[in-house]
């Protein structure tokens, strides 16, 4: 039997398999993981006719260069991404939110994300991957998930065990907008900070540091003044928690975060803004705006509804 597979000619900076992540493991020290930008993950799967929970390739900044071997297969890329498809001597300029058909020998070159961090490549079919705790999501820190819990490397192969037979082209009219205002609810240690510190946190702009990854986003700005204690007894964290260590610079917990931490929590990013937050590139400016819990819940409902609407338009 002929195998269908992708040859990885260039792996890219941080290319990993991701899906919806894994639940109920925080208590043993394993975070959710999963696609950083959930909306773009779901849309990529829909564009190639996959079930929405299927694994995709997540890449950051520079994506992979892949050569395809096998029968006709559809792919789609979401996010804000520059890519090209090389067919014999034809060069096709890629477009996000649109499916393309690859044939034997075609090359897919995911050159870079554009004013954003993460992009998603969905492949129309079943990938041969190992699952751990019902998820293939790669957590490189604990080496959990498919590909032995590691990011992809040059010269590896990605095998496709079953190809979706429907090659109809799908597309979505959508632009991945960037936001700089991130809404938060107050954290459980909000009052550890001085009146000046709180006001600096909510009124000043912060810059996204280069030291940001799937675990956390570090911010730089005016030092946030703590008047109680710069340490707390270690306790559980969740995605979006903003911790402020002794140096006064906030760190936002992202999908692969350590499950417990000992720095005061000044705020938590609302669920509705998480997908947009993770797309902010190093050097971007970010400004926090406080909302109350009821508002945060309503905003999530709207965000989720919008996502469902986009999915149903494909």
């Amino acid at each position, binding site marked *: 039997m002929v195998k269908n597979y992708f040859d990885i000619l260039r792996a890219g900076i941080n290319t990993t398999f991701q899906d919806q992540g894994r639940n109920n493991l925080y208590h043993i*020290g394993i975070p959710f993981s999963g696609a950083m930008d959930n909306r773009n993950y779901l849309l990529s799967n829909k564009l190639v006719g996959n079930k929405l929970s299927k694994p995709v390739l997540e890449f950051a900044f520079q994506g992979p260069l892949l050569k395809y071997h096998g029968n006709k297969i559809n792919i789609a890329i979401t996010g804000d991404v520059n890519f090209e498809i090389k067919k014999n001597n034809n060069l096709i300029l890629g477009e996000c939110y649109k499916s393309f058909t690859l044939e034997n020998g075609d090359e897919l070159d995911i050159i870079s994300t554009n004013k954003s961090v993460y992009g998603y490549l969905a492949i129309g079919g079943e990938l041969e991957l190992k699952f751990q705790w019902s998820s293939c999501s790669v957590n490189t820190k604990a080496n959990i998930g498919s590909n032995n819990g590691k990011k992809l490397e040059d010269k590896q192969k990605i095998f496709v065990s079953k190809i979706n037979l429907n090659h109809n082209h799908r597309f979505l009219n959508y632009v991945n907008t960037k936001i700089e205002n991130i809404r938060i609810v107050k954290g459980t240690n909000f009052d550890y900070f001085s009146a000046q510190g709180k006001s600096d946190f909510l009124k000043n702009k912060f810059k996204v540091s280069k030291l940001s990854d799937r675990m956390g986003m570090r911010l730089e700005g005016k030092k946030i003044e703590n008047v109680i204690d710069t340490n707390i007894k*270690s306790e559980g964290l*969740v995605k979006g*928690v903003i911790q402020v260590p002794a140096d006064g610079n906030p760190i936002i917990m992202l999908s692969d975060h*350590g499950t417990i931490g000992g720095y005061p929590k000044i705020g938590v990013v609302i669920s509705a803004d998480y997908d947009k937050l993770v797309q902010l590139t190093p050097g971007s400016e970010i400004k926090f705006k406080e909302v109350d*819990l009821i508002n945060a*819940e309503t905003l*999530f409902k709207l965000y989720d509804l919008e996502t469902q609407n986009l999915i149903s338009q494909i």
Partner: protein
Amino acid sequence: MIKNILNLGDAALYCDFGKEVNKETNTQVIKYFKSIKEENIDGINNLTPSYNKLIVSFDLKKTNFKKLKNKIENLNINKDNYFKNKKIEIPVCIDENFSLDIERLEKKLTLSREKIYENFFLKEFFCYMTGFIAGMPFLGDLDKNMRVNRLETPRVKVPRGSVGLTEQFANIYTFDSPGGWNIIGNTPLTIFDSSKEDEPNLINPGDLVTFKEITKEQYINYNG
């Protein structure tokens, strides 16, 4: 008992069991953790017990803060059932290649290394929680004369298997990881095994742990 339930963001409950870090409070946390887990409440997608807090994360599509808070406040906690403390012995080699911070400890504690190790190996530890990195156990309580702060500058890479001390706790690095604990030895035992999906952690909250000294030779031969 839970003193107070706050929201941690819009998709988690922050259950506060008080300020103190001791076995009694932590035992309450673990009882709640196990009871809530057994209830299989729809929408809950993670529970994180720690010394004196329990974080309950949930799927905002399925439930919300108010509904879950109400449910947890009215939960019937089984008071007796849950505590079977498993006893575990961890082999530790204190060869100079492994005891990276013993000199620092001698200075900070003004105790000889013989005395430090005697204290350490005689102690029975209680596992308060696991986490930060997968499977890392937080084991207490060290005697008052054995307590020391973290390193001022954390190591970029603490070797897997390292056994460290900080404040009232001992822990074991389950992976090569950045960290600031005072390292006194290394265990050849696998503390976290991701291939065992049912029970990846060797040590779980509530377990009782002792350490036993082994020679370098025993260490090398430990895993065959």
